[in-house]
Each structure stands twice: as structure tokens, then as C-alpha cells.
């Protein structure tokens, strides 16, 4: 290390020590985070490791120290937790997730499910329960049972008893659960839907394995005193991506939310539903596979819902019954349509339109013409053919100010301002092949002098970056493969490509 580097580290360390830093979370944190977490409520797709990690962390405080590792045999005992009764070897520990602090407290009051209801683990002599892989093989299995929103249909609605099936969570790469096997099952019993996840280390004995399966099969369930608070209404696929529609009873009334793997939840707060539909929507999928999912609540006198999509097609919606315990006056609907604005209509049993609403982006529908009129256009360069002198261009819309806020709120279900003051709408999946002018000017951001300075780029390197979807360096200059662009079209050909800065 040279003098400058050493001094630099000293200066930075000195300055860092002077910086006042928070020593506790501010009062508003829970409220702020809760507001954001409402957007991704549900959390059905948790990894088994996530739950098990929490369980074992909690188990450290619960399990007795000094006892030997139990086998699966010996006397059994029966315990009940959260309406689940289970019989298991006496030497094992039945863990109350609430006492172990695994379910949180105040935050769960608003969103009670999913919620871990019990955990079962072997006792262990002072081992590192937080990470069984480093505990010398002492922790050999873990089981958790989590209550989910009530499933009205689908695999989770299967009645108890059910069998555990294999579950692939990629544990081979885990330092804490090396080569553990995981099993999973989901079922509905006594008006409640559950999911069990079991982790078994390679060191688990056959006795333990058998006893664990026996304990799993011994479970019985009683109805919840709180009644139904959340339910899975239905699911589907849009843009190649599965989605699930949830209903939940909250203090404010009925809440509908849509969950998928890659998109946050849109939430529609409705209580009770009225003839003025207020749908939520989101776009799933990538590129030309993108599809809009719109959903919302309707009064119970609406028996059929359909929408007119941006391309003029009429799309029927699926109507879902919402359990009366959640909301006796509302049902729900969901539909999948091409990206863009949809006009939604609800019909009563006589065929009269009794409810209306709109959803989706307010941007104009995609043009059927692949050419672009002269002018400046925003979008993404998806491919470059330097030899042919063409690019594939994905037209999008760069919005700012109130327009951006509105589009952001429509697309995400969030309220408030869009982060970073801009929002990109790219509902049109069409790729346009555009000819490049021989004297094309390629203006790329100089990221070393960000963000007002440009340099004239080389088309071949630009094409390489775009093709590889990564950064390509040319000395100090950086060609970004994943960026956003403004193109200038004159007389039908692209005369300039300019990079758009985005934080």
C-alpha cells in the first residue's frame, strides 16, 4: 500500500468515526416498513431454509443444554400448539414460534397469515443450533408447520391427511444445511390451510426419520377462534409467470392482493365493493410475453365481468367467491389481457352493465406500424447488427413528474411519489428493426464524469455490450449493455443514439 492509499484510508476512517449513526430504529420505522410490506404480503413462497433458520435460531433459547442426542424411539408425548395437536418422541422439543419470537408481534396484527404455528426439533447439547452444518451433525432434522391463507381450491386445499413430498431448495450449497433433504406438504383441515416443511440432515437416523414421519402423521387440527382472516381466491399464469390472488380481512375492510415471483403485489382496498370499480393491475412477463393482470372487487350482484383490451379484443374475467367471513358483500375478479389500458364492465344476472372501471397503463396502445416517425424516441436497444447497420429497438415511454407518479401508482399499486422522479412504461412488446444512418452519432455517458458528459462511441463495441448485456470497457470508457436510450429518427433512419442516465 502506498502513502496515498494509507492516508486515504486514515482520512476515511477518521471521518467515518465522526459521523453520527443511528443506534436504534426510529419510531416510524415499523410504520414505514409495514406500509411497504403491505405491498408484498402473503409470502407464500418462502424457502424452507428461511423458516428453518429462524426456527433453529429460536430453538437455541428453548432447547435444554446437556442432554444427549435423542433417537426416534422411546416414549412419546402429545402437545398442542395453536390448534395443532401432535404426538412426538418425548426427548424432542416442540417449539412455540411465538415464544421463540419467530412470528413478530405488532406487525402480524395487520397481516396474520402466513404464520408459523409450531416447530419440532431434536434436543442438542449446546450445539450451534443456528447453523446445524457447523454443529457436528448434532441437529439432524427440523420441522415447521405454517398456517397459510385459506385455500379454496388448488393443491393447498387438499384435505388432511396428506403425505410429505420432496422439495428442492438447493441446500447442497448451504454451509448450514449441507446436503440436507427437504420435504414439504400442504393441506386444509378444519377450515385452515397449512404447509409443513421438513429438513433432514444426511446424519438423521432411520429411527428419527420414521419417528418424524409418524409425528407428522399424528397431527390433528382444530378450528381457529379468529375465523377466516385470509384466503387464496385463485391463481393463473400471465406472461409465463404464475400468479395468485389473495383476499384478506383487515381493519380497513377487504384487501385483495396479487402475488407473483417477480412483481410486487398490487393491492386493492375495497370495503364494500361498489359499482364504480377500482381495479388494480400489474404487468408480468418479459419482452413480447408481457401480459397485464387486472383484478378487483365487485358487489355480489355482479355475476360476470369482462374487459375491452387496448387492441380492441374482449377479455372475459374469472369471478371468485370471497368467503362471507371475509366480506359478505363482495366478490373478486381477475383477468389477463395484452399490456395497456383495459376498460372493465360488470354485468348483473339480467345482462345489464352495473359496474365499470379501467385498469392498466394510460399510455397509448401500441402502433401496428413497426416504423418510427421522425423525431426523438425513448426505449431500449435490444440488438445491434453493425454489419447490416440496424438495431432492434424496444419503444418505451420515459415519464416524469405527475405523469410518472400516476403511471407508477397504476403499475405497482403503491401510493406516493415514484422513486427517483421518473418511471418507464414499456407495455408495448413490439421490437422494431431500424436502419442506422451511415453517419450515426453514438453518444454514450462517460460514467467517470457522470452524468452530463458524453463521448462518441464505437458501434461495434456498443453492439458487443448490448449483445452480451453487460458492460464493455474501452480503456476508461464504458459501454453499458443494459441501459436506456434516446434515438433520433430523421427521414426514417436513426441518426443518433444517446444514453439516458438513470440512477
Amino acid at each position: 500500500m502506498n502513502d496515498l492509499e494509507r492516508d486515504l484510508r486514515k482520512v476515511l476512517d477518521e471521518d467515518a468515526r465522526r459521523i453520527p449513526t443511528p443506534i436504534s430504529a426510529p419510531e416510524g420505522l415499523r410504520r414505514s416498513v409495514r406500509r411497504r410490506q403491505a405491498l408484498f404480503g402473503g409470502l407464500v413462497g418462502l424457502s424452507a431454509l428461511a423458516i428453518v433458520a429462524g426456527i433453529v435460531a429460536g430453538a437455541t433459547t428453548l432447547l435444554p443444554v446437556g442432554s444427549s442426542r435423542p433417537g426416534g424411539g422411546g416414549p412419546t408425548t402429545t402437545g398442542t400448539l395453536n390448534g395443532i395437536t401432535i404426538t412426538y418422541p418425548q426427548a424432542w422439543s416442540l417449539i412455540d414460534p411465538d415464544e421463540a419470537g419467530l412470528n413478530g408481534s405488532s406487525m402480524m396484527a395487520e397481516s396474520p397469515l402466513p404464520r408459523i404455528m409450531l416447530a419440532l426439533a431434536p434436543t442438542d447439547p449446546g450445539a450451534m443450533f443456528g447453523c446445524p452444518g457447523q454443529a457436528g451433525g448434532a441437529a439432524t432434522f427440523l420441522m415447521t408447520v405454517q398456517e397459510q391463507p385459506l385455500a379454496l381450491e388448488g393443491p393447498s386445499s387438499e384435505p388432511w391427511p396428506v403425505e410429505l413430498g420432496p422439495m428442492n431448495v438447493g441446500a447442497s450449497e448451504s454451509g448450514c444445511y449441507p446436503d440436507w433433504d427437504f420435504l414439504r406438504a400442504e393441506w386444509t383441515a378444519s377450515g385452515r390451510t397449512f404447509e409443513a416443511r421438513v429438513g433432514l440432515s444426511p446424519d438423521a437416523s432411520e429411527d428419527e426419520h420414521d419417528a418424524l414421519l409418524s409425528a407428522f402423521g399424528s397431527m390433528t387440527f382444530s378450528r381457529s377462534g379468529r375465523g377466516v382472516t385470509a384466503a387464496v381466491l385463485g391463481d393463473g399464469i400471465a406472461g409465463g409467470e404464475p400468479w395468485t390472488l389473495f383476499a384478506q380481512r383487515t381493519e380497513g375492510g377487504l384487501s385483495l392482493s396479487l402475488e407473483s415471483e417477480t412483481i410486487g403485489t398490487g393491492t386493492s382496498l375495497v370495503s364494500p365493493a361498489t359499482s364504480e370499480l377500482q381495479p388494480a393491475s400489474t404487468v408480468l412477463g418479459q419482452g413480447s410475453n408481457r401480459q397485464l393482470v387486472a383484478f378487483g372487487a365487485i358487489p355480489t350482484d355482479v355475476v360476470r365481468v369482462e374487459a375491452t383490451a387496448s387492441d380492441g379484443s374482449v377479455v372475459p374475467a374469472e369471478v371468485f367467491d370471497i368467503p362471507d367471513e371475509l366480506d359478505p358483500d363482495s366478490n373478486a375478479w381477475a383477468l389477463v389481457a395484452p399490456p395497456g389500458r383495459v376498460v372493465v364492465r360488470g354485468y348483473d344476472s339480467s345482462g345489464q352493465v352495473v359496474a365499470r372501471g379501467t385498469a392498466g397503463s394510460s399510455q397509448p396502445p401500441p402502433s401496428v406500424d413497426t416504423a418510427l416517425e421522425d423525431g426523438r424516441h425513448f426505449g431500449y436497444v435490444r440488438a445491434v447488427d453493425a454489419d447490416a447497420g440496424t438495431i432492434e429497438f424496444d419503444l418505451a415511454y420515459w415519464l416524469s413528474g405527475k405523469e410518472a407518479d400516476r403511471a407508477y401508482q397504476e403499475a405497482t399499486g403503491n401510493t406516493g411519489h415514484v422513486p427517483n422522479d421518473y418511471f418507464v412504461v414499456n407495455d408495448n412488446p413490439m421490437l422494431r428493426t431500424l436502419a442506422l444512418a451511415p453517419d450515426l452519432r453514438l453518444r454514450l455517458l462517460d460514467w467517470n464524469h457522470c452524468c452530463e458528459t458524453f463521448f462518441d462511441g464505437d458501434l461495434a463495441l456498443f453492439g458487443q455490450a448490448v449483445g452480451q448485456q453487460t458492460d464493455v470497457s474501452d480503456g476508461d470508457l464504458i459501454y453499458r449493455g443494459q441501459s436506456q436510450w434516446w434515438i433520433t429518427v430523421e427521414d426514417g433512419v436513426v441518426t443518433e443514439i444517446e444514453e439516458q442516465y438513470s440512477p
Partner: protein
Amino acid sequence: MSQDTGIVRTVVADRTDLEDLYVRHMPGAVRVASLITGDADLAQDIAHDAFLRSVGRFRHLRQPEAFEAYLRRAVVNACTSHFRRRTVEAAFLRGQARRAAPVDEPDHGRRDELRAALSALPPRQRAAVVLRYYADLSEQQAGEALGCSAAAVRSMVARAMETLRERIPRSEDT
């Protein structure tokens, strides 16, 4: 398994321990933001907002263990975005350079000059330097935080160091 991993996973699973997560990661986030912006108050705001955003988007993370890196990237983005929006950046930086100079350590003339020179670097170069020499990140990790390649980080740091060498005297001269 790191302790962070356990906490992060528990947050995802149970929506709790947010305060722990906050306390664990916020001091570092505030320090990085402060060293990049040169403004402790602004750094608090940036880090807090970045934390909320990171938690709010947690579900999109394919690797929950990456929370710290994700938060760091959000902080760096917010810092550089802040500077991008400044229309009087040069004046601002001059002001920050003055503010950043400590008044209670008269025997650190070279370091004071270094502070001033550091504050005058372009934001992304300064961020790269902070991530490499304060946060001790590898070029690859710094690149992830900055949204660029490791080579680009190397380039930015090299340019920054070149600038710093030009602007401050060598230690043997002092």
C-alpha cells in the same frame, strides 16, 4: 451462515426483527453515504430511505443474503442521483470541501488537503474510492454497488487516485 443471513431470512419469513436489521446495517450505510456526499444530515436521509426501499423490495431478491449489498447499492445510487440533480454541483462541492475539513486537527495538513481533493472528485469516482478504501470492497463488489463492471471500478479508482496525486503533495514533501 452469517448472523446477517439469519436475521434477513427471519425478516422475510416472519416480518420481524426489522429493528435489528436496521441497527445492524444502518450505521455502515450512513457512513458510506456521508463519506460520498460529505453531508452527514443528507446521509441520514439517504440511508434511511434506501433502507426502506430495500426492505420494501426484499421480495424481489433472489438471494436474500444479498441484503447488505442491495442496501449498499441503493445508498450509492441515491448519493450519485443526488449529485446528478444538483444544478450547482461545483459550488456545492466547494462548499462541502470546506465543511469536510476538520478544524480541530491542525497537524493533519496533508489529510485536510486529501479531504478537500476527495470531496472535489466526481461523485462516482468518490463513491468508488469510498467503497474500495473505506468499505474494503473488492472491485467486483464495488462494481455491484455502483452498477458497473469491476474493470470500470478499477478505472474509476485509478483516475481518482491520479487526480488526488495531482492535487496533494507527496508525503515525503510534507
